[in-house]
C-alpha cells in the first residue's frame, strides 16, 4: 500500500508541556481523513509540524514514500504538502492573484516574477474550481468568504499530494460549502490525500472516509467513518459522554424594562437595522458565520465602534454611547473575543486585572487606591470564579487559558454591569473551564443581569440561551426562542 503521508512517532513539547506524544498519522492517496480533536488537543501543532512550520522533538515524516527534512516549509511544499490554515494566512496588502501565485513562486524559487504568470495561474485555478474572484482586488478589501476561497486556490495552485484543511468552512455559507465539497471530490479523483479538520459533526460524517481522534496530544481512536456514531465520536473527543446540557431557567422579566434594548442601530458598511432586546435575567445568543457582522454589533454596543444610526437603551434609559467609557458608565460589560490581546494585561497581577474596570469601587473618594479593600475584593472574586491560583499577586500570564478567561469575566462582574456582552467566551478553553464559565453566566442571569452571548459554538448556545438571534451579512435574519433552540435548527439556519 502506498501512502501519501506517513508520520511516525511525532512528539513535541512546548516549555515542558507535552503537546503531542508519539503520534502516528497515515494518509492514503484519494482518501479524506478527518483529524478530530477538541481545542488544545494538538491538531494545530501536528499540522504545523507536518507542514514544516514547527520542528518536532522526535519522529519522522514521509511524503509519497520519501522522508522529508522537517522544519522546512519549502521542503514540505516541494514534496506536495499544502495547508489551508484556519486563519487563512493570506497577505492582506497583496492582490488576490499575487496571493494565489505566492506558493508557486516559493516552490519554483523564481527570482524575477511575472504579474502575467501570476494572473494566468490564478485564473486557471479559479476556473478549475468554478468560482468567481476579482484577481486585482487586494485581499484586505474582499469578504471573509472570498478570503477562504483565495486560501483554497493558493493551496491548489500547486501539485498537491497531501492537503490539510484546518476548519475550512467556518466562514462559508451552505452554497459555498457545497462547491468546496465538489472540489474535494475532484481532488479525491486526482489521488490527493486530504486531511480535514472540522468541529461540525455532520460535516465530518458527510465528507470523510476515515477519522483520527486526538485528545491531549495522543491518538485515542482511529477507524473508518462508518464505524463511528455521533455519540461515539463525541465520547472519543472529550473522553466522556456529556449529557444533554440545555439548562435554562425561565427568566422573570416581568414589567421591568429590558436590561438592554437596541433600536435600528447601524454602522456604515458594516451592519444596519439591528433591533433587539435582552431582558433582565435573560441570556440571548447572537450568532452568525465568521464575518457576518456579529462581533461588530457587539463592539458597537460597547462603544468601540460608535453607531451611526439607531439608539441603545440600558435598563429602559436611552444612552449615548460613543466610547468604551460611555458604555461602562451606562452599565455595559464586554468580554472580548481575543482574551489574550484585548481582555487582560498579561504581565500584571491577577488582582490588579480583576479590579481594573472597577477602580472606583476600591479607591477613596479622592481617587487613592485602598490596598486592603483591593486585596479583599479580588480575593472574593477569585474564590467565586474558582480561579486556580495560589496567589492573586502572580501575573495573569501564569494562568491557563481557561483561568485567564475567568479573570476577564471577573473583571466585568465586579463592575456590576446591567448587561454583560460576551464574544466567544469559551474559544480555546478546555471542557471543564467551559462548564464553569457557562455556569457563571447562568448565575449572572439569575442575579438579574442581561447577558448577550456572541458565539458560533452551537452546543454552547443551546446550553445557556433563552433565545438565539441570527446575523447574516450585517442584518438580523431570524430568531429562535425557548423550545426552538436546538442544535439542528441552529446549524441549519447558520449556513442557509
Amino acid at each position, binding site marked *: 500500500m502506498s501512502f501519501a503521508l506517513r508520520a511516525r512517532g511525532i512528539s513535541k513539547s512546548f516549555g515542558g508541556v507535552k503537546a503531542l506524544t508519539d503520534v502516528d498519522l497515515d494518509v492514503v492517496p484519494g482518501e479524506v481523513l478527518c483529524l478530530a480533536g477538541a481545542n488544545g488537543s494538538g491538531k494545530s501543532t501536528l499540522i504545523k509540524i507536518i507542514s514544516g512550520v514547527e520542528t518536532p522533538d522526535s519522529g519522522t515524516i514521509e511524503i509519497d514514500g520519501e522522508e522529508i527534512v522537517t522544519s522546512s*516549509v519549502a521542503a514540505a511544499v516541494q514534496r506536495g504538502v499544502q495547508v489551508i490554515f484556519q486563519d487563512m494566512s493570506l497577505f492582506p496588502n497583496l492582490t488576490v492573484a499575487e496571493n494565489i501565485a505566492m506558493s508557486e513562486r516559493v516552490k519554483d524559487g523564481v527570482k524575477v516574477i511575472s504579474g502575467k504568470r501570476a494572473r494566468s495561474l490564478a485564473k486557471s485555478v479559479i476556473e478549475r474550481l468554478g468560482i468567481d474572484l476579482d484577481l486585482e482586488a487586494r485581499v484586505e478589501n474582499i469578504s471573509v468568504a472570498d478570503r477562504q476561497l483565495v486560501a483554497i486556490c493558493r493551496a491548489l495552485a500547486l501539485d498537491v499530494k497531501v492537503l490539510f484543511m484546518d476548519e475550512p468552512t467556518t466562514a462559508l455559507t451552505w452554497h459555498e460549502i457545497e462547491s468546496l465539497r465538489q472540489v474535494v471530490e475532484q481532488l479525491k479523483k486526482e489521488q490527493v490525500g486530504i486531511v480535514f479538520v472540522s468541529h461540525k459533526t455532520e460535516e465530518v460524517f458527510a465528507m470523510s472516509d476515515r477519522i483520527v481522534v486526538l485528545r491531549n496530544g495522543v491518538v485515542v481512536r482511529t477507524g473508518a467513518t462508518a464505524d463511528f456514531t455521533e455519540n461515539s465520536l463525541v465520547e472519543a473527543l472529550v473522553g466522556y459522554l456529556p449529557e444533554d446540557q440545555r439548562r435554562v431557567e425561565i427568566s422573570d422579566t416581568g414589567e421591568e424594562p429590558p436590561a438592554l434594548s437596541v433600536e435600528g442601530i447601524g454602522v456604515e458598511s458594516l*451592519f444596519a437595522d439591528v433591533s433587539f432586546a435582552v431582558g433582565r435575567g435573560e441570556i440571548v445568543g447572537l450568532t452568525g458565520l465568521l464575518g457576518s457582522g456579529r462581533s461588530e454589533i457587539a463592539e458597537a454596543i460597547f462603544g468601540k465602534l460608535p453607531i451611526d444610526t439607531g439608539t441603545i437603551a440600558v435598563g429602559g434609559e436611552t444612552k449615548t454611547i460613543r466610547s468604551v467609557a460611555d458604555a461602562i458608565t451606562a452599565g455595559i460589560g464586554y468580554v472580548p473575543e481575543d482574551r489574550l490581546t484585548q481582555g487582560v494585561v498579561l504581565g500584571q497581577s491577577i488582582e490588579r486585572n480583576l479590579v481594573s474596570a472597577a477602580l472606583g469601587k476600591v479607591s477613596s473618594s479622592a481617587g487613592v487606591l485602598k490596598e486592603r479593600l483591593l486585596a479583599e475584593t479580588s480575593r472574593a472574586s477569585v474564590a467565586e470564579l474558582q480561579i486556580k491560583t495560589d496567589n492573586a499577586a502572580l501575573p495573569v500570564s501564569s494562568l491557563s487559558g481557561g483561568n485567564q478567561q475567568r479573570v476577564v469575566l471577573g473583571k466585568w462582574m465586579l463592575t456590576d454591569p446591567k448587561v454583560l456582552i460576551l464574544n466567544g467566551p469559551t474559544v480555546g478553553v478546555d471542557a471543564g473551564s467551559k462548564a464553569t464559565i457557562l455556569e457563571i453566566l447562568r448565575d449572572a442571569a439569575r442575579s438579574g443581569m442581561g447577558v448577550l452571548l456572541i458565539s458560533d459554538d452551537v452546543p454552547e448556545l443551546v446550553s445557556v440561551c433563552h433565545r438565539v438571534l441570527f446575523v447574516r451579512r*450585517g442584518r438580523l435574519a431570524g430568531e429562535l426562542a425557548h423550545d426552538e433552540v436546538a442544535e439542528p435548527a441552529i446549524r441549519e439556519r447558520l449556513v442557509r
Partner: protein
Amino acid sequence: MSTAVADSSTVRDRMSALWRRYRGENNETTLLLLILALVGVMAIVEPSAITLGFFGDIIRSGIVTLALALGLLMIIISGGMDVSFPAIAIFAGYATITLMQSLGVDGAVWPFVVAVAMGLLLGSLNAVLVARYKMETLIATLGTQVIIRGVLIAFIGSVYISVLPAQLDAVGATSIMQLGGTQVNVLVIPVLVLAGALAWVLRRTMFGRSIYAIGGDKESAKRVGISVKKVQVAIYLVAGALAGFGGMVHVVLSRHASPFEIVGTELNVIAAVVIGGALDSGGRGSVRGTILGVVLISLVQNSLIRLGVSSYWHVFVVGLVVLAGVAIQARSAAATHRRTRILERLETAA
C-alpha cells in the same frame, strides 16, 4: 430611502470609484496634487521665486534625502523601522575620507565603493540583531545608531575636514546641467538609477515581493515558505549599503566632511518615506511615493527660504507638514484597513 438620496449616493459611489482608480496604490496622486498646489500658492504669493533655480534647489537639497530614503523604504515596507541609517551614512562618508587622507590616496569612484562596503558591514549589525535575535527593529537600530556614532567620534575622528581629496572634490564640482543659477550635480544620476533599480526590485523580483509579504503578515510569509530570516538579513544589508552610499553623496556634495552631520536629519527622511505612502505597520510603500515625499519636503524647505522665513521656523513648519502628511496616510490606511465591508454595496430596496 428617497430616489434623490439614492441618486446622489450612486454619483458619490461613481466618483469614489473613479478616485480609487486614479489615486494610486499609496495616494501618490494626492501627493502630486498637494505638490502642485503648493507650487501654485508660491506662484501667487511670491511669483518672483518661481524660477528654474528654485527647482534646481529642490533637486539639490532632495538628492541626499532620497539616497537615504531608499534603504529606509525597504525596511518600512517589511514592517520595521530604522533610525541607524544617518549614523551609518556619516560613518561611511567620514571614515572613507579619513582613510583616504591617512593613506594619502585619491580617487573619484572607488571611495563610493568603500563607503558602500562600510555601510554593508554596519548594516550587518542590524541584520544580526533583527533577524537572529528578533529584536524590535526600532530599539535595535536606536542602539546601533548610538554605538556607530560613538565609535566614529571616539576612534575615527571628530575634526572637521574642510578640504576633500582633489579628485573626489572634483566630483562635487561636476554638474550635468544648470537650472537657473543652480548647478545640478552629476551625483543625481546614480541616485536616480538606484531609485529605479530599487523600484524594479520591489515590483518585479521575488525578493521585493517577499518584503511586501513579510510586511503584510510575517507568520503567513513563514507558512508559505518564505525564509523570513534570509529576507530580513538581505534587507538590512542592502539598506546599510544604501546608507553608506548616501553618506558619501552627502559628503561630496557638501564638499567637506564633518562627523556631526546627517544624524539629526532622520526626521526629514522618515517623513519623506511615510508621506510617500509607506505605512509604519508595514506592507505598503513605493519608490514613486517616496520620491514625491522627498520632493514635498524639499519644496517646503526651499519655499520657506525663498519667502525669507527665519530658519528657526523651518523645523516647525516641516514638523507640521510631517504631521499633516502622516495623518492623511494613516487616515486613508485606517479607512481601508479597518474592516471588511459586510453589508452589500447596492441597496436594492430604494
